[in-house]
């Protein structure tokens, strides 16, 4: 039963129609915690914050339907009460006061996922359906609340990561998963190269690994699953770590662990005043010290994602090309469009923009100068 969002959706639709008529752009905004992504066009705000309800949640269905303005903090707390979680571990970036920020709509539009991403899938893998408003102010429902659904094109996943450029997401149904029984963090005194080599070997078989990061001379490995399985892995590889049993509230959420800090980009590494960059790379890619001289490097996602602190933008650009990856600035001082697309793909983007938001109402110029 798709909730129509009532009066608030009507108000948003009217605001969109008005902007469309007057050829104005609107900036979709929740908490604004991801304002550093892309190039903002500071225009009238289209706010999701009044849409902050949980529409339905039945733990045994593994599905939750929520409105887009709901705080991630509140969503995670509700899931944790039922010993469930979002597998992809969405980041919650802190405000200056240290408050964790982020809404469901922003999570979807940016498609950012935390350290578990390589083992759990991304945001789009958990999207089952959504309700949106297109550039004509029409309220549309796609997908549903079920795991399998192939009726029509997969518009729900198309909206995921589109940075609001194709429409305003008002509501979403997400797949959730049970929190594991236990978790352990292992630290290993290894070079980055050696750590990646070990990881490569462990991953040829099924393993409880659900996080792999490295900085300086220390690698971090997260293991999740049953108590006994984590124990078996530790024993086999002669590792030691405290195994933390999850209580009924799924205590891993916001417990101040290394993984939570990495998820939210907090902690000593991220406090450096130089700009922060994200480099997305093919899994298992090694960045050697010689490749980047004037930079600090944090490996994440088992080498599929690197966090880099540097002023040397030029060196990073060429490294991204060389390693077949792409670069993004995580710094409001460095507004940049998204990585360039081949002409045929850009044409498809422009055509889709035309199909969903012909008046270029939503987030004009946020992802690409072309739309």
């Amino acid at each position, binding site marked *: 039963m798709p909730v129509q969002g009532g009066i608030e959706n009507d108000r948003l639709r009217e605001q969109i129609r008005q902007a469309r008529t007057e050829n104005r752009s609107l900036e979709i905004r929740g908490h604004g915690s991801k304002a550093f992504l892309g190039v903002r066009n500071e225009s009238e705000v289209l706010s999701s914050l009044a849409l902050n309800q949980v529409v339905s949640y*039945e733990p045994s269905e593994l599905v939750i339907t929520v409105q887009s303005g709901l705080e991630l903090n509140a969503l995670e707390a509700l899931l944790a009460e039922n010993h469930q979680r979002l597998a992809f571990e969405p980041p919650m970036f802190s405000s200056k006061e240290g408050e964790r920020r982020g809404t469901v709509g922003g999570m979807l539009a940016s498609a950012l996922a935390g350290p578990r991403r390589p083992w759990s899938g991304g945001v789009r893998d958990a999207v089952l359906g959504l309700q949106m408003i297109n550039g004509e102010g029409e309220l549309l429902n796609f997908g549903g*609340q079920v795991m399998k659904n192939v009726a029509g094109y997969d518009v729900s996943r198309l909206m995921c990561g589109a940075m609001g450029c194709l429409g305003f997401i008002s509501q979403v149904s997400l797949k959730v998963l049970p929190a594991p029984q236990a978790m352990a963090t292992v630290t290993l005194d290894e070079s980055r190269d050696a750590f990646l080599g070990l990881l490569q070997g462990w*991953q040829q078989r099924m393993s409880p690994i659900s996080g792999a990061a490295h900085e300086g001379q220390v690698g971090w490995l997260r293991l999740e699953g049953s*108590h006994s399985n984590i124990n078996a892995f530790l024993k086999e590889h002669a590792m030691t770590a405290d195994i933390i049993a999850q209580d009924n509230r799924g205590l891993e959420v916001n417990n101040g662990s290394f993984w939570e800090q990495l998820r939210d980009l907090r902690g000593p590494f991220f406090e450096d005043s130089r700009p922060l960059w994200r480099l997305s790379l093919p899994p298992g890619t090694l960045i050697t010290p010689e490749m980047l001289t004037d930079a600090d490097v944090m490996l994440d996602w088992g080498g599929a994602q690197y966090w880099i602190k540097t002023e040397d933008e030029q060196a990073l650009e060429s490294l991204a090309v060389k390693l077949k990856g792409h670069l993004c600035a995580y710094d409001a001082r460095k507004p940049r469009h998204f990585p360039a697309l081949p002409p*045929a793909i850009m044409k498809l983007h422009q055509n889709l923009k035309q199909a969903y938001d012909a008046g270029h109402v939503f987030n004009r110029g946020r992802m*690409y100068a072309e739309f």
Partner: protein
Amino acid sequence: MNSEKLTALDGPISNWSAEQLLPLLGKILPESCILHEAEDLGPFECDGLSAYKAPPMLVVLPDTKAQVIDLVKLCAQHEIPLVPRGAGTGLSGGAMAVSGGIMVSLTRLNKIKAIEPELRRAVVEPGVRNLAISEAVRPHGLYYAPDPSSQIACSIGGNVAENAGGVHCLKYGLTVNNVQSVECILPDGSLVTIGGPCLDAPGFDLLALIHGSEGMLALVTEIVVNLLPIPPVTRTLLVSYDSVEKAAAAVGQVIGAGIIPAGMEMMDKLAIQAAEDFAHAGYPREAEAILICELDGEKEDVGAAYDQLVEVLEVSGATDIRTAQNAEEQRKFWLGRKSAFPAVGRLAPDYYCMDGTIPKRNLPKVLAGIAALSQQYGLPVANVFHAGDGNLHPLILFDANRVGELEKAEALGGKILELCVTLEGTITGEHGVGREKINQMCLQFNRAEIEQFHATKRAFDPKRIFNPNKNIPTLARCAEFGAMHVHAGEIPFPHLERF
């Protein structure tokens, strides 16, 4: 409704004839790639849904990607409809020929181009069979997870087009969750890569949009699939119930307890008895319903989940819980389920397989509804479900030789899909819309939503070259079909004349 009216309802009709097209094709393709004699075209007149038949005018079987590109360019230049086809195992008429068009079968592009065990990926051409991928990567301890029941025959290109599922979706996802990138030809003939080697690609998620687009947006020529390590331990349970309601409730109880089975299948009495007669799997004939429940993973994890599972099943009111003691018994448990369709097929001359999905909590309601409809239409229905993800496959038994019975079966099927929509579900979980469910699309989506789908198609294919008249109904069709979506009290399609 006669077939001409059907076509007219779906938009412009192509007037190309085989005589006109053959010389054009001859310029770009060797003779060995072109089929045009009636006896050669026969095998292509339908896909796995044999009730929907239309012999193609011409079939092209390219040997190379370059030939496919040339073909698409030719079709784009002359506005010739092009229907892509894989192994032809689809179950919704998605690969049905359209009049005045060409059918292109991609089965000759069937090479596994690379296996990259360290990245747990394989690069394959679209004609590679689903199961052939798992067989090829097995020496590396890896497999490809999505396993539609046709996996021995179906092609990976078709899997992408239909976003194919299978029995292990709840835990491992559908095709869209297991593909890294695709190389494809757009309707203007340009070759592009969608997705890439990284875990995310810049720009919109076009890779998700291509999945399940039923060959209407792009023609896939190469697929990079993600592979998983083979789980070292698998435990399979056969659980009996004296009521369907109890079995249906148990599904929710298992998942609610935090257990994610690799597979969780349910069969009702008619299906159990048919399967037992056919496969001698040792199924309990007296049971009203059975669940086949499978756990996989590492030894310790499976052990912990198994103890918990048995406890939940005992509390759920199971009359019998059997755990396969060895690989042979495991195979037998599955044999009954996997042969359920042919087994049920022996009960009547024909059967019609449906594919709705509903939230699991509505399983008892949908079963009661199907039973009532079965009685009303006087046709038996056997039920086989992917219960873990609420995906139903009711099998309607009928005899096509009896006048009017096929139409009756189709009408009953349509009603079952309507019931799924009413119960917050969808008209298709994994078989696709194709031609078969094109009318029911009007039930699930309103005018604006259907128009948004058409706009999406236009963004890729403004001339409607790729697989026209499938998947998304025209608004005229929805008006004609009559039983339309009522959305928030609006009258659907008020501006359209009813005829």
